[in-house]
């Protein structure tokens, strides 16, 4: 018996008939050839989130971002009100332009101009080549022809996105669509206390993403995060979401607030350290006052609302929590069976030590369960790669997983049909 009403079609999955209800093969997650198709069809064509405006608050502030799936590094720089992105390559002889100590690691800083470490060519924040060392030694060199190679760059709600297409088929806003645009007025820009995490994992980027699109696994993988006397009941109860939404390649799952309200529970069912810090798995208990939230945060109008997890195709997610904080997940493939997972926890600047302690508890909790996910997903990759099984059943709580794999396949197939094609 479902705890929450399902759509008239009988299930969330059947509400989106294009998804079907059959098993998935997961060949898309173990095939090196398929990954090469994804790189061309998705990572060189879709809008990719690469960072936040707060990372580059003033003119000259920059960060670099290695994007292995697109086979490049970019440098993203602030110039007045503009944010620009360039391929991080010197036009003279191809040296990686911006790096420090370790050429293959990302870096950040402040510059007036970018200066190549090899022969000293310099570039303005607009990418224009402004200096070529011993210019007179060259043959008819016109510096105007040797600016940095730009990358399409647009900002949405303070999130910086890039697109490696020569000409993106859609603007960023067209690509995101109404559901994701609905988060635009959330006060992301004020939430500058940031705990950032990173790990390299041995699993396919989609296999890893899958676990962050469904909470079906949570009462099993993460049950140990709860006091021992509750665990059997939590696992037995399982997980159901009151609202799912699919819009093109993107997805949304909302969780009910009743699951989160730890502070309403009898004290014996709360970890002592949570009681001491007034915080825990679902964040600090004392809600941050963010004012009225935009209705797009909870489009299913779930009451009590707990969490909305917005899945930005192809590899980014924003999770907005009732208690007034948010976190992000990002999944950057580095091969068909490896990825870099980046997680960030954001909140309003703490105004007191007690607020900081609550955020520390939330950030440590985030690490504890992310470790559980990361190791489990390496095990999943091993199981899939054994090739023993090629049909995997997905249930209705995994509807976003189903849509995600379909979307990646659709993008690849569309690209194969029409490499220069347009997105619907």
């Amino acid at each position: 018996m479902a705890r929450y009403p399902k759509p008239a079609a009988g299930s969330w999955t059947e509400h989106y008939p294009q998804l079907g209800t059959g098993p998935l093969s997961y060949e898309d997650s173990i095939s090196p050839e398929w990954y090469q198709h994804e790189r061309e069809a998705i990572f060189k064509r879709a809008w990719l989130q690469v960072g936040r405006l707060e990372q580059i608050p003033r003119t000259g502030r920059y960060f670099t971002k290695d994007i292995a799936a697109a086979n490049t590094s970019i440098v993203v720089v602030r110039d007045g009100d503009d944010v620009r992105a360039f391929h991080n390559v010197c036009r003279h002889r191809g040296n990686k332009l911006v790096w420090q100590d370790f050429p293959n690691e990302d870096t950040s800083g402040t510059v007036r101009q970018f200066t190549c470490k090899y022969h000293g060519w310099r570039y303005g924040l607009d990418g224009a080549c402004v200096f070529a060392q011993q210019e007179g030694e060259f043959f008819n060199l016109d510096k105007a022809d040797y600016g940095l190679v730009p990358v399409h760059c647009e900002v949405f709600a303070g999130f910086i996105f890039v697109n490696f297409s020569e000409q993106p088929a859609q603007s960023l806003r067209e690509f995101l669509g109404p559901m994701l645009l609905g988060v635009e007025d959330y006060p992301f820009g004020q939430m500058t206390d940031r705990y950032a995490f990173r790990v390299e994992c041995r699993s396919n980027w989609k296999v890893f993403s899958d676990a962050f699109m469904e909470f079906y696994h949570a009462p099993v993988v993460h049950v140990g995060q709860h006091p021992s006397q509750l665990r059997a009941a939590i696992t037995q109860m399982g997980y159901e979401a009151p609202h799912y939404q699919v819009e093109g390649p993107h997805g949304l799952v909302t969780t009910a607030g009743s699951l989160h309200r730890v502070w309403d529970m009898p004290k014996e069912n709360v970890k002592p350290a949570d009681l001491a810090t007034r915080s825990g798995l679902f964040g600090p208990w004392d809600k941050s006052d963010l004012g009225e939230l935009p209705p797009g945060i909870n489009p299913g109008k779930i009451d009590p609302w707990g969490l909305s997890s917005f899945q930005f195709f192809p590899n980014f997610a924003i999770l907005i929590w009732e208690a007034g904080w948010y976190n992000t997940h990002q999944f950057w493939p580095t091969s068909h069976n490896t990825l870099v997972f980046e997680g960030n926890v954001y909140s309003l600047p703490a105004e007191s030590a007690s607020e900081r302690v609550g955020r520390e508890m939330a950030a440590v909790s985030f690490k504890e369960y992310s470790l559980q996910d990361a190791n489990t997903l390496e095990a999943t990759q091993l199981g899939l790669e054994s090739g023993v099984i090629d049909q995997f059943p997905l249930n209705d709580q995994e509807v976003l997983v189903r849509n995600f794999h379909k979307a990646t396949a659709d993008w690849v197939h569309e690209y194969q049909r029409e490499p220069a094609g347009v997105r619907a």
Partner: protein
Amino acid sequence: MALLPSDFADFEQFAARWSLATERERWAERMSSSIDDMQAFYDAIIPEVGEAIAYCDKFPLDDMPEDAVNLLRLIYSFVMVSFAVELWRQQSPPDTLGTQFERISEPLP
């Protein structure tokens, strides 16, 4: 020379080991400590953790005296070991030794 405010002299015996500035250091200390050691630290802190947080609250975060910062860092270590003590009864969550999840930046203190 005491590391902590005199009100928290009882915690002084733990300060050199657990008053650590970054999550990376606190995680490393948890991974290399015995459950018995962490239990002793946890048991000593938890009855007074409310008072310790309240003491730190007397100062603005960007202008805390050094002994209060040390106390705050000790509270962070209490949070860090609480998972090992309350939930896992071992240093790391079960079945996670094959991976890491490094905190690469955080607000300070």
